[in-house]
């Protein structure tokens, strides 16, 4: 019976109920989209790193998984090539172009030997120092075609080819040009290493570590496993801040909704009290209303997160990747529920403590 009353109360004010559901839904979507972006971006980066086809990566001393600084001399690659079991190696240089994108400078001949080469969907490899290649996502997002002029790093480039995504960054230029442009002549960000026998990766890593002391040397499997939120400074904190804001928004939305509901139903609360309803019974009704809004909002928010993924994938495919992370559905729903119940608690207690005679006299 209580559930029926709760349901009928929510039905009685459909606009107010829908606003509550939408606000909670947005809160849930916010959390799921942010977490989805984190997971999607990290897994995409890991996939593109492993897509190079290297067995080992050598990174500068004191570097972290997201460090892009060019602090390694390119001649290190020569030293690496001398080690037993190493088939070949190639250094690359990465430089940020905007908040979400990087350009990679490669020695294309050497890189093609290591990776097997890019798979082009239009055009081909760069022929001159001012040529640039981009992946399909970047071309789609920026509406680029082979032969176009691309402005990057404050200078024009000639687009020579568009390749399938899944390797390196979304924009690739000649290594020497990028080194010169960024005052990093003779330097690279890291070195990819191909082994004669990938089954002997552990021995090769041990050998390289003994020779290149202080350098960060990982098997690619180990390296890609580092693309996790815990290895990205501030990311976890940022996500918790957004979750906190979401809880506050959900809390305020339900607080306002329930507060107006309690005011509007003052007389009804008096009637329930006259019938012998205890404060707990009345509080229970309002908490159930908030819980129902939170559940509906959570479902709406989960569905909405598919919408944000669709929009992101079609509007900024090169910049952002959003995954659907079902593991976070119950977490986001629980966060929404907590905010909603907290929001309903104040108005609920006000209703529970309402004087029956005053409530019955309310018009």
């Amino acid at each position, binding site marked *: *019976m*209580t559930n*029926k*009353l709760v349901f*009928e*109360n929510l*039905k*009685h004010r459909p606009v107010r109920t829908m606003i509550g559901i939408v606000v909670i839904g947005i809160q849930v979507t916010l959390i799921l989209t942010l977490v989805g972006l984190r997971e999607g971006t990290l897994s995409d980066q890991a996939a593109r790193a492993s897509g190079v086809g290297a067995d080992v990566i050598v990174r500068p001393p004191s570097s972290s998984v997201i460090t892009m600084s060019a602090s390694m001399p390119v001649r290190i690659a020569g030293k690496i090539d001398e080690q037993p079991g190493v088939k070949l190696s190639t250094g690359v240089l990465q430089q940020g172009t905007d908040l979400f994108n990087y350009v990679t400078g490669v020695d294309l001949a050497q890189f093609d030997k290591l990776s097997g080469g890019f798979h082009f969907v239009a055009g081909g490899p760069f022929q001159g120092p001012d040529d640039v290649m981009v992946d399909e996502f970047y071309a789609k997002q920026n509406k680029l075609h082979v032969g176009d002029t691309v402005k990057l790093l404050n200078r024009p480039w000639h687009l020579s080819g568009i390749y399938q995504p899944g390797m390196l960054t979304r924009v690739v230029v000649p290594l020497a040009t990028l080194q010169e442009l960024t005052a990093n002549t003779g330097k690279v960000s890291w070195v990819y290493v191909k082994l004669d026998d990938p089954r002997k990766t552990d021995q090769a890593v041990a050998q390289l570590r003994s020779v290149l002391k202080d350098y960060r040397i990982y098997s690619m499997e180990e390296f890609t496993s580092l693309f996790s939120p815990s290895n990205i400074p501030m990311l976890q904190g940022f996500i918790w801040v957004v979750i906190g804001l979401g809880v506050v928004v959900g809390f305020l939305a339900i607080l306002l909704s329930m507060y107006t509901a309690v005011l509007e139903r003052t*007389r*009804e609360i*008096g*009637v*329930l*009290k*006259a*019938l*012998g*309803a*205890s404060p707990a*019974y009345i509080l229970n009704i309002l908490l159930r209303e908030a819980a129902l809004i939170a559940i509906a909002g959570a479902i709406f928010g989960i569905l909405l997160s598919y919408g944000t993924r669709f929009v992101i994938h079609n509007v900024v495919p090169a910049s952002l990747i959003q995954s659907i992370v079902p593991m976070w559905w119950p977490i986001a729903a629980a966060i929404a529920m907590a905010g909603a119940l907290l929001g309903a608690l104040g108005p609920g207690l006000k209703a529970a403590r309402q004087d*029956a*005679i005053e409530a*019955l006299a309310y018009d």
Partner: protein
Amino acid sequence: MTNGQPIISIRGLRKTYHAGEVDVQALRGVDLDVQPGEFVSVVGPSGSGKSTLFHIVGGLTPPTSGTIHIAGRDLLGMSEAERTELRKTSVGFVFQKYNLLPTLTARDNIEIARDIAGKKGAHKNGPLDPEFLDMLKLLGIESRLDHKPRALSGGEQQRVAIARAIVNRPAILLADEPTGNLDTENSNAVLGLLRDLNRRAGQTILMITHNPEAAGYGDRIVHMRDGHIE
């Protein structure tokens, strides 16, 4: 009407309200006995203390002093929780403004009183037992149970309110101006129903009214003025 231990026994009942810095003496020593099965009408002008008496007998507010026993239970020392329990088990209310829950059907308005009293699920095929269904026939609302209050006339709403008030078989039915919002025809019908309820089911009724004609439906009329019973 039966004679013996009164179901309502009130002696020297006083109630003082604090309105800001002013104390308002709403009841100034009321003495009243109501026997089980009696239908008592309380009449008096506005401000005479009728409503305060109604609220105290119904356990909606505590008295300031005096003694008051309802079905053998002393209300003076009762906590809020105990008064809630009293309303749940021993008292049924009928109000002037019907006070049905607008979001529920007539049936659910009756059912929720049972739910609050902890009697939910007692009947598999519905909340209402055969004896109570007979009562609904008496009230003339058995065909209107699936309508919401907005689809019911004032008279029908008040009859649903009466059904809600008696569904838990309370010791006392308290009616506060039950015909105050009704036309003459519906007033007579509702008052007739209350009298039938009293006569046929032995329901003790304490009714507050301004209307001398309505008061005449009771077995006894009690006059109140300035917080006293005359």
